């Protein structure tokens, strides 16, 4: 049991470190380090421009999408090299947030199911951050129950083999700045729901695609509704066989799980720092026994997640594939972040309600975190879905009894019908 690199890993780390040291946008480091737990916000520059510039620079030097094959814009690196890159990239890694869905999910899906020609066309600009991708999965009637989606794809009758898409997606992160997307549709409503799905990819500029940002509860707009009205796609943009979309989507979602190593923030270090500065009736908050009990509980969740990540990295280093046990990361971090934000407000008493960065402790970050954290517990699998995953795939408990099993999709009762 040790934290040491093998000689090969150490040599790779040294190479990474010296390249990052020579090339990273160091003037943003301090700001990136403190913006991690409430989303990237940069005061003087356009985050998108900075993110694209850093990604392009990495790509030109062969440091983008390390685990992808070289011919598709990657480096052909081993999983452990990718982890080392992530550790060394540190706060600059937050800039890749814009590309994470493309690199983590769309890219691997294209790699597995697109034609050779398509892969050579689309993957390198995706790796270089020149083209941004989104994932068009969730729908108003199909969130946790993704396979309940209703967006229809129908073959045209003109013999061209083209498809006509009609329907609506929702919660599409970054659709408003994306160039391409992967899209799951229903091609056969007469069979049970998992069997009638088909995957496509498309340009977000295709006629008939309309993107409407969703104004979120916290006032931001990171997600979108995407409407499809008679959108015509050639059959060449289909990924996988007709009716095989569920299996294709599982490839996408499995890759999401592999995107580990960076670990999720809980906000604990920031809270600890606040408690060392805020005075209460009994002196500094950090010296109050009741505060200490809360802090300790959040501390061990934070360190537990960190060392859980180290165990996963060790497994990768040994050539193993991380499994569903890594679902605990977001489950624990999401609710901890919310509890911490609420407690940080509580410590500030009346002043805790203010959001002006100049008037609040920690520049208003806890207030932003308070308003953002409910989404963390829902996006990318709700707390409840993650508990189901742990119960079913880690502990081996039976799946919930499904009343819609073996029922043709168009006969399943829904609230929308």
């Amino acid at each position: 049991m040790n934290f040491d690199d093998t000689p090969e890993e150490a040599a790779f780390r040294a190479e990474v470190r010296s390249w990052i040291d020579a090339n990273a946008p160091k003037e943003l480091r301090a700001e990136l380090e403190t913006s991690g737990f409430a989303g990237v916000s940069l005061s003087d520059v356009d985050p998108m421009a900075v993110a694209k510039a850093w990604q392009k620079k990495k790509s030109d030097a062969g440091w983008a999408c390390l685990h992808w094959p070289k011919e598709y814009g990657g480096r052909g690196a081993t999983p452990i090299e990718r982890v080392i890159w992530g550790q060394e990239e540190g706060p600059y890694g937050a800039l890749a947030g814009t590309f994470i869905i493309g690199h983590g999910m769309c890219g691997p899906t294209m790699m597995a199911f697109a034609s050779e020609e398509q892969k050579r066309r689309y993957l390198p600009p995706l790796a270089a951050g020149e083209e941004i991708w989104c994932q068009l999965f969730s729908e108003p009637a199909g969130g946790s129950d993704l396979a309940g989606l209703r967006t229809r794809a129908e073959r045209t009758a003109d013999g061209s083999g083209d498809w006509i898409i009609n329907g609506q997606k929702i919660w599409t992160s970054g659709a408003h700045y994306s160039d391409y997307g992967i899209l799951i549709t229903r091609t056969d409503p007469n069979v049970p729901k998992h069997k009638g799905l088909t995957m496509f990819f498309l340009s977000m500029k295709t006629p008939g695609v309309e993107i409407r940002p969703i104004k979120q509860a916290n006032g931001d707009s990171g997600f979108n509704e995407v409407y499809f009205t008679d959108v015509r796609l050639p059959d060449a943009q289909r990924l996988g066989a007709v009716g095989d979309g569920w299996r294709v989507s599982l490839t996408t979602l499995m890759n999401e799980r592999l995107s580990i190593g960076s670990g999720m923030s809980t906000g604990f270090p920031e809270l600890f720092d606040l408690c060392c500065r805020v005075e209460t009736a009994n002196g500094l908050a950090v010296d109050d026994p009741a505060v200490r009990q809360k802090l300790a509980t959040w501390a061990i969740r934070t360190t537990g997640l960190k060392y859980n990540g180290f165990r996963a990295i060790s497994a990768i280093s040994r050539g193993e594939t991380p499994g569903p046990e890594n679902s605990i990361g977001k489950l624990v971090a999401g609710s901890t972040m919310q509890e911490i934000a609420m407690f940080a407000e509580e410590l500030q008493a009346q002043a805790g309600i203010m959001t002006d960065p100049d008037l609040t402790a920690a520049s208003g970050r806890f207030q932003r975190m308070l308003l953002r954290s409910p989404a963390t517990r829902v996006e990318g699998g709700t707390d409840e879905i993650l508990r189901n995953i742990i119960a079913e795939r880690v502990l081996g408990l039976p799946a919930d009894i499904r009343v819609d099993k073996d029922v043709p999709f168009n006969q399943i009762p829904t609230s929308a019908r």
Partner: protein
Amino acid sequence: MDFEFSDDQKQLGAEARRFLQAKCPPATVRAVLEGPQAYDAALWKGLGEMGFLGIVVPEQYGGLGLGYLELCVVAEELGRALAPVPFSSSVFLATEFLLAAGSAAQKQAWLPKLVSAEAIGCFAFAETGGPVSPKTVQLAATGDRLTGTKIVVADGDIADVAIVAARTASGSDARGVSLFLVDLNAPGVTRGAVETIDPTRSHATLTFKDAPAEPLGDAGDGWRLVSEVSDRAAVLTAFEQIGGADRALEMARDYALERMAFGRQIGSFQAIKHMLADMYVSAALARSNGYYGAWALSTGAAELPEAAASARIAATQAFQHCAKNNIQVHGGMGFTWAFDCHLFYRRSNLLALNLGSLSQWQDALIQRMRDRNSQAA
């Protein structure tokens, strides 16, 4: 990075599990629960024969001369099996005190016996209810004689030797606390077994009246030694708790698969699944914190005090959480004497207090983080 036990260490764990499955099935634990004996003497002897009582003890004293990672994997198996033996008292505490501060003669006199199971060691600390602090250590040391009473001494009724914290300078200062080694079979020592929430681990009140004692370590160094050894014992006990938590979770999972209600396995209800998922999460957090503690303990890292407190807190929470919800998943059957659920519930609540309470360790963790931050600043 290799944040995992080695194949050899895992093999040692597997060997310990096989041994305990054969020598310490639930019936063995139950025999101590229901019978007059304070511990299972045959199991204790067997653990000595396997070398498990001297894993970290140098070979010159009859030990195996291995490291703390090896001791951690064995501790986990003892926790899974709820082994009704004085392992923690004798190995995590008495042996550790001797290794940390014993003179050559004291080590020579006691370590070989502790390693071979010929003798049992214990640690006598608390004198009053509530958290132990330097001011609660008032048992008087006069020269080489001790006078006073220690309460809830784990294995005090069966031990041959005790490490006793006593006051060598009046007042309430930590510097007035020193450690002594007492042969419990000598005159001047009386002991009375006490009943506890977990009869599978014995406890006693020890009364000393001019009892002969030898200093262990330097005078006035007692409190520091207690803190140091408590941190080490916290990591080792955390592995016992991790083992217990995992076993309680497995029992609950197995029962949820087997038990039918409303025409289906109860494990198919989300209320049960989510409870089990939360148990898994707490056990996983405990294991990962425990691994870090094991790393710090085995390498003598400066991070040990924080790592030990984290391991202790996470493991205490996990074992209590898994043990109480194991009963909940079992429903009414879980509250019967015949089912083993209560054995885990009892042990989890015993281990939650045996090295100080959860809130004491929470307080210690935050104080240690604070000290580190102010040193860095």
